[in-house]
Structure formats: C-alpha cells, structure tokens
C-alpha cells in the first residue's frame, strides 16, 4: 500500500525528470527503440532563453517574500484581537474568514484587473503582493488565531503585571513562543503566492516580470508540430525543484499549520 502511495505521488515527477534529459528524437521514437540517450540540451535551451529561466524564479520569490512579510504584519494583530473576542463576534468573524479562505480566487480577477488599470498597479511585482496579501490573510489569521489560543492566559497576565504594554507583550512574550506557528504561516503564504495564477496572469504582461506559473503557461503556448516536450520537462523540473525542496525541508511546519487551523477552526 505504501509503495503504491509512493509511486502515485512520485511517478509523474520522476517521469518529467527522465524526460528532461532526453533529446527530442528519443522522445518521439517508437516505444522501446534505441537505448537511452542522455543530454543536457533541454536545460541549456531553457536557461538560455529570453529572459532566462532563473528570472521567473526570482520574480516569484520577490513577490512571495513581500507577500509573506505584509501578510504576517497584518495577520498577527488581527489574530490576536480575534482570539480575545468572545461569543457572536468571534464566531461571525471566524466563519467569514473561513468563507474567504474557501473562495475561488479566479472570480476576483476582473475587479482586480479594473483596479490595476485604474491605479496603474500593473507590471509591478511589489504591487502584485497587495492583492496576494489580501488573499492570504484568511488562512494566515485562522492559523495564527489557533496558535494564540494555545497560549496560556496566565503568561500574558504575568507580563501585564510586570508592566508590559501590548506591543511589548507580543514581541517579548507571545511571538517567541509562537515561532513554529509563524513559520508554518509564512511557508503556507509563500506557497500560496508562488502558485497563484489568474491575478498574476492579468496584472503582469512584460516577459521579464512574469512569475513562474505564468511563464510556464507562455512557454507552453507557442509551439507547432514538433512540440519541444524535452524543454517543457526541463522547465517543469527547474520550476518544481525550489518548491519541492521547500516542502521537504519544512513539511512538519506545513502539516502542523494546516492541521492546527483545521482542528481549531
């Protein structure tokens, strides 16, 4: 069973890896023809493109980082305030946040496009992090609220008695204890921002500013009879590796964040 699960999860990825090292002729040869040939040509093609592939990874990282910082700045106070509420207000806001977290983002693209046109926010990576922040807030607030709920009240009371005001309490007492939750939230927001598609599609048109998903879409659009699947595979591998590494390293964090949010939500 476990083996099946492993194969199911990894097979497509491994096949892309394999394909990325195959020359075009080998890909279209009849099944089981010549012996395996290996080449780095696909990677060379992708990396030497105009603009070069690493540019897209950089763009995505810039937007992701900006979004994560902004989201945390706004989500921490909101989660704290929410946790301190009681009764109907807290339930209402939590439900609203949940509804917002479920909302299919693509339905917002038109209104956001009009906004971009009206305020000149298009083709600007930092401006893109603004809607991304808004879209990440629901999940971030829900996860952080669950983490605040774990904090024993006595801790804060003690800090109050010692004369610490709210910002100081947050900074010196609560947040240090919540580092795992903050890390989880940061990773989740970063992932969300890397994977976002419709907003980036409509806000970014200049090829040197494209984020990774949009770049992949563009690469896949222009081809004719001999579709360069070797190059596509190389692009897939290059585009996947950063995220895969991120997930493998931080998987505990991610799982903890999601389950916390689910259980306490």
């Amino acid at each position, binding site marked *: 069973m476990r083996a099946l699960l492993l194969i199911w999860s990894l097979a497509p990825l491994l096949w892309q890896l394999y394909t990325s090292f195959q020359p075009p002729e080998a890909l279209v040869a009849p099944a089981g023809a010549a012996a395996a040939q290996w080449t780095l040509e696909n990677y060379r093609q992708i990396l030497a493109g105009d603009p070069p592939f690493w540019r897209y990874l950089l763009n995505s990282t810039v937007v992701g980082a900006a979004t994560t910082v902004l989201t945390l700045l706004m989500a921490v106070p909101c989660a704290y305030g929410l946790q301190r509420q009681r009764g109907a207000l807290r339930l209402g806001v939590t439900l609203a946040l949940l509804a917002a977290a479920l909302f299919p983002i693509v339905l917002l693209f038109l209104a956001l*496009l009009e906004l*971009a*046109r009206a305020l*000149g926010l*298009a*083709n600007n990576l930092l401006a893109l992090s603004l809607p991304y922040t808004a879209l990440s807030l629901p999940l971030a607030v829900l996860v952080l609220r669950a983490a605040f709920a774990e904090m024993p009240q006595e801790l804060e009371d003690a800090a109050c008695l010692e004369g610490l005001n709210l910002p100081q309490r947050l900074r010196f007492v609560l947040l240090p204890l919540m580092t795992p939750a903050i890390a989880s939230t940061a990773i989740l927001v970063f992932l969300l921002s890397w994977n976002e598609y419709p907003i980036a*599609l*409509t*806000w970014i*048109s*200049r*090829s040197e500013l494209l984020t990774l998903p949009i770049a992949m879409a*563009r690469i896949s*659009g*222009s*081809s*004719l009879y001999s579709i360069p699947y070797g190059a596509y595979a190389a692009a897939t591998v290059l585009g996947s590796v950063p995220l895969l590494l991120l997930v493998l390293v931080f998987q505990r964090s991610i799982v903890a964040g999601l389950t916390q949010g689910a259980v306490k939500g």
Partner: protein
Amino acid sequence: MGLLLALLIACLVAVARAQPRPVPIRVLMPASFADATAEQVRDFNQSQGRLRIKVARGPVDTDAMADLAISSLLLGDTPYDAMLVDISQLTKFVAADWLEPLEGWFGNDYFEAMVPGARLGNASDGHIWRLPFTADIGLLYWRTDLMEQPPQTPEQLVVMSRDLQRQGKVRWGYIWQGRQYEGLSCVVLETLDAFGARWWRPAATAPAVDPATGGAAAMRETGSTQLDSPAAERAAAWLDKLVTTGITPEAVANYAEAEALGTFAAGDAALMRNWPYAWRELERMGSPVVGKVGVTTVVGRPGQQGSGTLGSWGLSMLAGGPHPTETAEVIRWFSGPEFQRRMAVSAGYPPTWESLYEDEELRRQVPLLAVERQALQNPVERPPTPLYAQLSDVVQRQVNGMLTRHGDPGTSMARAQRQSELVLRSAAGTPQEVP
C-alpha cells in the same frame, strides 16, 4: 608609432559609434507565419543596417496570439510595434483604440492596385488600419474525371451529386466543414450568400452626438443580424438536406479542413469546399486524384458568381510604439509585391496585388492564381463587428446542432437570430432602430 595606433583605434571607435544602431521593430505573428517568413526576414535584415525586424513567435492559434497582445494592451503596455491581424479580429482592435491609423504613410488610394477582395476589411471611417499581405478565399474543388463542368448553383450541385452517386461513380457528392468551429461559420456565410440571404446588416450611420448629454456619443453597435429571413432558412435547409439525403456524410458534423481534404484526397468525394492551401496539400500527399482536380468559385445564386468567404491577413501598427515611421516602413515591406511573390511561390499564400496576378512567371509557378483572382472579385465578408467572435459562436452551435440532430433548420436559425440579438443587446446597449 603607438600613438598613431591609438589614434587610429579611437577614430574607428568614433566612426562605429556614429553609425546609427539598427532600429529594432518587433512584430508579433503566429508561429506558423513566423516560420514561413523567417527566411525573407533574415534576408531583409542582412540587406540593410537601418532596420532590424525581430519576429516574436506567438502561439499557433491565432486567437491565443491575439490574447497575448491584448493582455499587454489592456494594461497600457505596447510590447510590439506591429502585429499580424486576422480580418475577423480587426474591428475589435480598432474599437479598442489600440491601432495606429496608417493613411498618413500610405494614402487612402493605397488599395487601388489590389484585387477587390483584398481591399475589404482593412479600413473604416476614412482610416487605414491594416495592410494585407495575403487574401485567402473559399473555393470549390471538383473532379474533372467525373463531370464536364462544375456546378454553379446549389441546385445544380445537388442534381449533379445525386446523379454521380446513383451511378455509383463516387461515394459522396459534396464534402465541406461542418464541425462546430470557425470553419463552419465560413461555410454558412457562403451558403447564405448563395441563397440571397445575409448574416449581417449594417445600419446607416452612428450618431456623433449623444442626444441625452450633448457630448460625444459612446460607440454603439449599429448593425444587426438577419438569420431568420426566409432566404436564410432556405440556406440552412439546404445544408441539412445535403446530410439527410446522403450527398454529404453525417460525419461532416466533425469535419474540419483536414478531414474534408482527407476524404476528397482518397477519391471518395466528387466536390469539396476548402481553401487554396488544399491544392498543394493534395500534391504533397501524393493523392490518387492529383491531375483530376479542377478548382473554381463556390456555388452561388443563379447567373451570378458564388462568393467565397474572405480570409485575409495583414500587419497593423500598434498605437503608442516608439518607432512609428520605421514600423510603417516594415509594414510596407511585408505587404509589398516582392515579399508576396516569394510567399506565393514558397508557401502558396494568394497575393493581394493585381500586378502579381497578371505576372506570367508567377502564373506558371502558382497554378491556382487565375481562379483565386476570379474568386477575389466578389468575396463575402464575415460580419465586421467587434462582437463577431460571439456571434460566430452562436451560429456554429446552432448549425452544428442542426446537422447532428438532422433537422429543423427553421428553429435553428430562429434561435440563432434570437441569441444574436441578445448578444448585441447585452454587449452594446439597446440597439438602434434600423430603418
């Protein structure tokens, strides 16, 4: 000695710097066009140092290629200097104010030396928006070994097909494109014309002043569709009858150009409606019917030449680019006779200039030239409205539905008309009264 050398080098560098770098002109085209024109573009760039054409290979699908440009233009960005525009997309770009008028560089009489068909769909309101470099048109392919003369009216087509089928000389009488896609709209357009019906009826003139506010009137769609006229219903009924009486296979509801060509090339059909490219394809495929095929204009009204659907491609200048004059020069080269001559020979693109159609050498090399010229004397245009894509979708759905359900052309056309009206009202505001 060293000083002299240094001075010489300094002079050379200064001279090199003084040479103006070639102005890059970025042109967006679908990948197929880009590949077909690559050699010529390379020659152009090498033959002079002032301009450098950089072709951007867009998606193969022309709609997707236009999408690429639109996503930038909507954000106020002009990523290309010129782009290839299909005739059915032009009105949309014009209405959006994304194109630069060209009559300043070319003069309003630029098209006079072109065949009549090529003149259509490039200008409006006294402005030139696009210079065409090829004019495609729907044609009728017929088997010279099965008939003496090709049919000229829908009625003749039916009679001749039935005769041939009854005699067992050929499996199918007439093959065309019936799949739910743009090709079907082209077939419908030609059929409507053959029965004296119209798809589109432009209204008189748009008001320049809004009566309510006294200011400039918002653009209103001032045309309408006429798909429920009795003649239109007869046209649809004829298409339906072709399938129900077995002149055309039922599978036609899934045929695009390639499938129709395949059946005709295998010798299974007496007549085929297709585009000029099919002629070269037949030879390339090594089809058994090569040498037994004639090409003529599509069937039309009695006593009149049938009107094929016009499909033309040309370059437009995007507004807001940094080098308008140089771009105009590049556009002129792309639509010039030298370029078109080479394209006609190498890729089979029908040219737009009368002079090329009269050229003896070219007529020898491109056998279809004569019939193309004749057909381009009176083509039929797809509705020139920015909402064409939506209207075409409505017609495709209804007609294809009629073909797969075998019947009720009256209801199908009535529904197409009603839905077209809804599209116009929804996207353009309340329609004007049409006199």
